[in-house]
């Protein structure tokens, strides 16, 4: 059954690589030969060249007429010869033509009436029966500030007063709630906003101090003050203004005018203090003798200055109005020293150069024309407005606008022949020399006949707005009709004619 046997073993082929290797073939590959070429480069020649700009011989001019366009003189001559006759003929025709007389074109809708836009008031000031003493529009024309105080009071008072500002372009304008109220320890007599920075405003106080506020600071708007030093005014400050420094046009100084006869120029210092830089003093003996002073005054008596206006054409010339009824032409570029008085750290100069014929009472306002270098208006308590030329002492035109006092006159910033006057009868009268030289063009009744209007200001950026403040503490913003906003044709010529009526 069982036998022995030998079985051949089973063979499995090896899978090892070595064994498999015998079945492999050797192959090789190689990249093709990279062809390379050797080349050498070197600059073999060089040259030095220099360049420089030459000093140009002719003066620097934006428009270099000789160089820019090579002028063909022959062509120019023939052109001019051909064209000259035509041009002269047209010029002659123009001079005698009546075709356009009285022809006026208006591009915008005309507004025929004067209307009151806003009645602004501050109830607390009205409760204290304070009056509006001064108004100022800011540099952008959208904010109006007014100061409260008393103008009919002759006494020193320690009554608190306010400076209030309203932004007329804001939607939520509340006429009874000013945007900013600044409490001031004494009556503020005058205000002036900075001509380019919209938030700085100066105020002159009854106590003789000058303060500067920054209306953008909410906590404490007061940033500079003169304090009560030997230099400050000893009488109420009736006018303040910003003076542009002739050397650095960004730098401004502050000017203040007071009835103690001094006109002082202040500089702002870092510690919040205003320091005196320059000053002018008016004493009776140094007033030009073209007018005799009626009263025998001692030569050194100070003469009170109540108003000041700088000329728009010559920044060193200014006109001042005095308590004695005179207007004087003065200059900042004088060298004569004022008759010495004690107590001033800076030597004071005597600025008066020419005296004009007087009013019957103190001159409360003078205003230089922005359109003619020689004309200015002065208004006094005799109710008269005088139109003066700086070249002669007698006025060119004298108008009686009111039986009571005149508190403010202002030239219109856009119409050379128009000015506005604030009367003691509660009216604002707008006068147009082009229409009638006897009676006002428009008479705006602001308040009752017992409440005088104390101050008016035109808005330079929005010339249809006129702000007027009266004795009842009310500030009214009037919108003027279109004929007060646009300059008419030939108005400047008419103004020139008026100014040339100077008698020799």
């Amino acid at each position, binding site marked *: 059954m069982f036998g022995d046997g030998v079985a051949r073993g089973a063979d499995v082929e090896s899978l090892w690589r070595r064994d498999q290797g015998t079945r492999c073939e050797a192959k090789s590959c190689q990249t093709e030969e990279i062809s390379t070429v050797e080349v050498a480069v070197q600059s073999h020649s060089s040259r030095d060249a220099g360049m420089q700009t030459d000093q140009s011989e002719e003066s620097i001019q934006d428009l270099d007429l000789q160089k820019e*366009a090579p*002028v063909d003189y022959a062509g120019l*001559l023939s052109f*001019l010869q051909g064209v000259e006759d035509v041009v002269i003929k047209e*010029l002659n025709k123009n001079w005698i033509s009546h075709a356009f007389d009285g022809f006026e074109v208006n591009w915008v809708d005309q507004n025929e009436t004067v209307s009151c836009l806003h009645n602004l008031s501050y109830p607390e000031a009205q409760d204290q029966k304070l009056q509006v003493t001064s108004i100022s529009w800011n540099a952008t024309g959208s904010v109006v500030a007014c100061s409260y105080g008393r103008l009919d009071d002759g006494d020193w008072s320690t009554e608190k007063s306010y400076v209030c500002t309203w932004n007329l372009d804001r939607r939520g304008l509340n006429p009874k709630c000013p945007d900013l109220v600044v409490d001031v320890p004494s009556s503020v007599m005058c205000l002036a906003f900075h001509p380019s920075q919209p938030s700085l405003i100066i105020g002159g106080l009854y106590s003789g101090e000058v303060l500067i506020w920054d209306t953008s600071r909410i906590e404490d708007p007061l940033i500079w003050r003169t304090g009560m030093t030997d230099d400050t005014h000893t009488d109420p400050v009736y006018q303040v203004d910003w003076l542009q420094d002739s050397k650095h046009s960004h730098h401004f100084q502050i000017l203040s005018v007071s009835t103690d006869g001094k006109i002082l120029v202040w500089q702002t210092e870092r510690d919040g203090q205003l320091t005196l830089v320059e000053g002018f003093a008016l004493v009776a003996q140094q007033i030009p003798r073209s007018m005799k002073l009626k009263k025998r005054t001692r030569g050194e008596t100070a003469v009170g200055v109540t108003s000041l206006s700088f000329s728009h054409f010559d920044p060193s010339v200014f006109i001042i109005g005095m308590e004695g009824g005179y207007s004087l032409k003065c200059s900042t570029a004088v060298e004569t020293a004022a008759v010495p008085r004690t107590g001033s750290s800076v030597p004071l100069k005597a600025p008066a150069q020419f005296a004009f014929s007087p009013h019957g009472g103190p001159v409360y306002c003078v205003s230089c024309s922005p359109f003619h270098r020689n004309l200015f208006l002065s208004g006094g308590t005799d109710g008269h407005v005088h139109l003066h030329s700086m070249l002669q002492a007698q006025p060119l035109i004298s108008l009686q606008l009111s039986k009571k006092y005149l508190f403010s006159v202002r030239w219109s910033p856009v119409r050379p022949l128009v000015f506005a006057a604030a009367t003691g009868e509660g009216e604002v009268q707008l006068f147009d020399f082009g229409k009638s030289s006897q009676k006002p063009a428009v008479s705006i009744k602001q308040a009752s006949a017992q409440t005088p209007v104390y101050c008016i200001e035109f808005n330079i950026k929005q010339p249809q707005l006129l702000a007027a403040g009266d004795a009842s503490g009310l500030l009214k913003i009037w919108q003027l009709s279109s004929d007060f906003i646009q300059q008419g044709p030939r108005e*400047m010529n008419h103004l020139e004619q008026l100014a040339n009526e100077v008698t020799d």
Partner: protein
Amino acid sequence: MAEVEETLKRIQAHKGVIGTIVVNAEGIPIRTTLDNSTTVQYAGLLHQLTMKARSTVRDIDPQNDLTFLRIRSKKHEIMVAPGNL
């Protein structure tokens, strides 16, 4: 050269003339009696307006051409005499 100046002086001295500017074909002022910035402003603006006025006249009637252009404003009048180009 002197005649050019004389002619210009005659025009400038005429009654009522405030300033005179002569402009070449490219609109560059070559003679002026006004200050530089005003001259450049007037030359640039009036050159464009004159070209426009001339093309308007010629579009309406190709045989026609602009002889004189006057711009009357509230304050003054600008008179433009074009050359032959």
